[in-house]
């Protein structure tokens, strides 16, 4: 499981578990606890691109929140560079599925958002420096000339490019991506996947990428971590070796790709079925899962 055999892994999850208290409802007056994650142990080496797949409600987003420092684990430890995560930090950036752009800021101002205020070295960037950096990172994601557009003037793909530029702009070591391309159409998604790989190669970031697309996971990741249905456990990690990618060929129809894809698919398939039977749905940020309560009332009615 430990691939980063070097000194300290960039990210290290040690037996991480997370529970939520479900608020009391009519059906469950005393409230219940919901175990989102259980016993997750995973090391990610610096510069690695790892993808995370799992059925709905398997705690993928919860895991990402833990890594981002938006919540803390109930058991175990989350380590970045060997230090325990105590809160959000500029060494990690999150890219959300719904872009999370600030609609009152132009593309450039959105990218510059993380540059305002003191940086990691305690220095404040001037207005000019911020604008230069914003322009640079917009260029990196292929959005030169769109600096002054507001988010509502951009397509979904462009919005996500801006969001990626924003998280790259303050130069974090780790990119945490939560189904970033799920809301995009197939062509835009493929295009952005390629660009993400290009950016990853040129910047050497460590990327943790959550998706529920098996193709996407296999295409992007050096390793694919498969989570089980709730409570989310690490079911297996699949090493992906697609050889040298020229970028021209259709790698997705390659025999090796298909083989990997099938492997991940079969691992995931059982879990998805289990999750569906249990009626699991997405765990909300506040820890409630919409499927839990109705499930119980159904049981009562029967």
């Amino acid at each position: 499981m430990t691939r980063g055999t070097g000194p300290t892994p960039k990210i290290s999850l040690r037996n991480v578990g997370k529970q939520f208290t479900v608020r009391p409802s009519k059906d469950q007056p005393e409230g219940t606890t919901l175990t989102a994650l259980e016993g997750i142990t995973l090391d990610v080496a610096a510069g690695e691109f790892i993808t995370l797949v799992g059925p709905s409600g398997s705690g993928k987003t919860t895991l990402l929140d833990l890594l981002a420092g938006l919540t803390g684990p109930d058991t175990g430890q989350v380590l970045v560079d060997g230090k325990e995560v105590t809160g959000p930090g500029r060494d990690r950036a999150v890219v959300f599925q719904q872009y999370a752009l600030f609609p009152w800021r132009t593309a450039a101002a959105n990218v510059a958002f993380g540059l305002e205020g003191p940086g990691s070295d305690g220095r404040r960037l001037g207005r000019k420096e911020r604008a230069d950096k914003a322009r640079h990172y917009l260029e990196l994601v292929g959005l030169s000339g769109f600096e002054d557009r507001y988010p509502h003037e951009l397509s979904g793909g462009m919005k996500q490019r801006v969001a990626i530029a924003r998280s790259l702009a303050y130069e974090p070591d780790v990119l945490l991506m939560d189904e970033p391309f799920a809301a995009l159409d197939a062509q835009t998604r493929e295009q952005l996947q390629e660009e993400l790989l290009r950016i990853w190669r040129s910047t050497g970031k460590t990327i943790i990428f959550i998706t529920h697309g098996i193709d996407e996971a296999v295409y992007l990741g050096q390793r694919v971590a498969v989570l089980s249905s709730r409570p989310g456990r690490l079911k297996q990690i699949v090493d992906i070796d697609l050889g040298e990618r020229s970028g021209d060929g259709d790698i997705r129809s390659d025999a090796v790709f298909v083989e990997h894809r099938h492997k991940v698919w079969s691992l995931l398939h059982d879990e998805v079925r289990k999750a569906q039977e249990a009626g699991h749905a997405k765990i909300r940020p506040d820890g409630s899962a919409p499927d839990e309560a109705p499930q119980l009332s159904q049981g009562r009615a029967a």
Partner: protein
Amino acid sequence: MTAPTLTKDAAASAAPVADADVGRTAQPAATRHLSSLVRPGVRRVGRVIWASGAIVLFLLLWELGPTYLASASTRVFLPPLHEVLRALGSLIAKGQLQNHLAASVTRSASGFGIAVVAAVALGLLVAWYRSLDRFLNPLLEVFRNTAALALLPVFTLLLGIGETSKISIVAYAAFFPVLLNTIAGVRTVDPLLIRAARSLGLSNFRLFQKVILPSAVPTIFTGIRMAGTSSILVLIAAEMVGAKAGLGYLIVNAQSSFLIPDMYAGILTVSLLGLLVNYLLVAVERRFSRWRTAVGSQSN
């Protein structure tokens, strides 16, 4: 689109040569090319005519109705438009209208300004601190549901009939729309944006300054616009009850002095002032919420 066609036909038959462009679009055999060029402009003119139709009809009715339809006694109380306009002209010429207008505008602007500053500040606090909200909310609900004009006697008794009581009651009336909208604006900030900002490690203060406030601005401005309307409304009523100047005073005083055209001139000024204030506030609101134009069409 019947109105524009009619006017076009009229124009074409009146001046078939001079107004060739317009004339041709009215003819069925007109070339497609030309009509497609001219049509947007014509359509806009048509729309303007259609949109002002009701107003024009109303003014016509006002002008002709009292002269031809009403009895002589009614005509005294409802003078035709031209008499009202003449009265308005002489009020302006004598400088009276300007004085009354200035008095009213000063009062409503001061009260409105005080209300906006106080309500935005309190609204931000209430929306941010849940416990403060729980403490203040019942009291605020009581005050909010007490009509401002019902309190007019109280304001007059405590603060006299001078400027203070009028500015206070305007401030009171304008306070609540701004307060409620500020609270709503802060409460309805997209939680995803807060998550995004938090993931960048923003402090509470920065989060407030950079995310919550800007995203609440359009909602706050809706409240400010509502407050603008109600501040004029309440002021006129307050001036009617007790004042020595102002548009409300002008109207009531003209009525009791039997200067009926003057009274209507005052009323007309009030509605024009209201329109102007609303127009200005809408323009400011639009300026501050340009980014919001396509929120509805976002593919979330």
